[in-house]
């Protein structure tokens, strides 16, 4: 039977996520890097008491609608609906803006485990790679080391960080095929490929589904074996053009001109 990981709706994609689940959510701070429609489906299903694993906790749809994002819901939809019991997160609050998560935090309505961003990535990768943990230098001599095993390796101090395991990983990619192979677009890659395969079930929300063979094997970032389900966003949102285009060429021209100017200034010597 042909392998086919494509599911037809966001509701179907998350149908087996139950109350109390631990859920990884891919992306960084910006909404375009996140599995926006999977989050909407999760909020509609009102899956409660969840533990989330993510880089940030969201800014809410108003901020992103202003930027012109077609799907403006980020982690905030889980936060403001009170679905999160505990957040394992790197950047929970913003210096510039008080988000809904910060309000819940102040009211004591949500638990938090704050993890340095690189350590978060490595703990997720450890779960995915079947490792028992990783020794990292980040956090030695700070609050992060509290209660953790320390070890000196080659004269440097490290702390043992354990894998973060999850029931589901919700990620966003640019294009995917029925095998679950994925490619990303620009800086919207971030935690998405890191989380793919780190949970028992990985669900990928893609801008566009393509035929097997259309994705260049040299360019595939996430191999399909890490992915269990692929669900496509509504057609009108995809696809977008390539990032490296006229702008890059212009920038290169300007760079060459600037270098020439700099060389002339120094009397032609490099």
């Amino acid at each position: 039977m042909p392998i086919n990981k494509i599911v037809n709706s966001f509701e179907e994609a998350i149908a087996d996520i139950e109350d109390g689940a631990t859920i990884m959510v891919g992306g960084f701070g910006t909404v375009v890097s996140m599995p926006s429609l999977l989050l909407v489906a999760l909020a509609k299903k009102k899956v409660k008491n969840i533990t989330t694993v993510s880089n940030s906790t969201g800014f809410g749809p108003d901020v992103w609608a202003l930027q012109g994002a077609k799907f403006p819901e980020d982690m905030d939809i889980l936060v403001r609906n009170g679905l999160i019991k505990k957040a394992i997160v790197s950047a929970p609050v913003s210096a510039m803006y008080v988000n809904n998560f910060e309000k819940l935090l102040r009211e004591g309505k949500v638990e938090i485990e704050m993890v340095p961003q690189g350590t978060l990535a490595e703990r997720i990768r450890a779960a995915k790679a079947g490792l028992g943990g990783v020794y990292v230098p980040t956090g030695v001599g700070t609050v992060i080391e509290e209660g953790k095993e320390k070890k000196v390796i080659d004269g440097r101090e490290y702390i043992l960080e354990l894998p973060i395991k999850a029931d589901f990983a919700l990620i966003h990619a640019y294009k995917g095929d029925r095998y679950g192979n994925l490619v990303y677009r620009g800086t919207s890659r971030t935690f998405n490929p890191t989380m793919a395969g780190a949970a028992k079930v990985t669900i990928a929300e893609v801008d566009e589904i393509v035929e097997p063979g259309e994705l260049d094997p040299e360019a595939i970032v996430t191999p399909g074996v890490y992915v269990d389900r692929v669900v496509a966003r509504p057609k009108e949102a995809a696809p977008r053009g390539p990032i490296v285009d006229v702008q890059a060429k212009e920038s290169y021209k300007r760079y060459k001109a600037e270098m020439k100017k700099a060389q002339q200034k120094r009397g032609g010597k490099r």
Partner: protein
Amino acid sequence: MKKEELLQKEKLDRQIMALRVAKEFQDGNVVNLGIGIPTLASNFIPAGREIIFHSENGVLGYGEITLPGEGDLDLVNASGQTVKPAPGMCFVSHEESFTVVRGGFLDISVMGAYQVSEKGDLANYMIPERQVGTIGGAMDLAFGAKKLIIVMNHVTKDGNYRIVKKCAYPITAPACVDLIVTDIAIIEVTKKGLVLKEVAPGWTPEEVQFLTEPKLNVDPKCHDIELM
């Protein structure tokens, strides 16, 4: 010496501080710029030097910040500002991005701070007035970068010390800061303590010391801040 008078005295503005920071970038350096004044430094790369900018969200070699509304939302720096693509740019996943940071491939990290101690301890993740914090990539950058430059105002709005004997806020990393660029001085953190290297035009080492809690060792060659 009156503190009020010193607080009123003219200091360097954000752009000039960013310009001074950029002078530290050597040709071919891989550089990460934090939110705020550090980001501005990308506009002042010294002529003839090529710098590779790294951003935590997984991009190396990106171009300038675009005008608002003109960029591509899938091409942003760690502050979420859209940036221009540049030839030679490449994208990586999050674990790879921090492999660059922790693995010794990042020459310079520039970030802001609330406090820096005389030993180079850095406190910049807990927002003092809100008693909440966000670690984000700051800890990994502080532990991983070969050289850490802090750019900040010399004192708080109320005139309190930011360069202190011991940080009052939870620290991001101990003994990690190499250079402090403020609106009145350039201070190097050495094993023997803080060394005052440069002062803003119109400022004396004694005046800078007055607004600094730990003792400053004045470099015999201490001079006005050079911008070019």
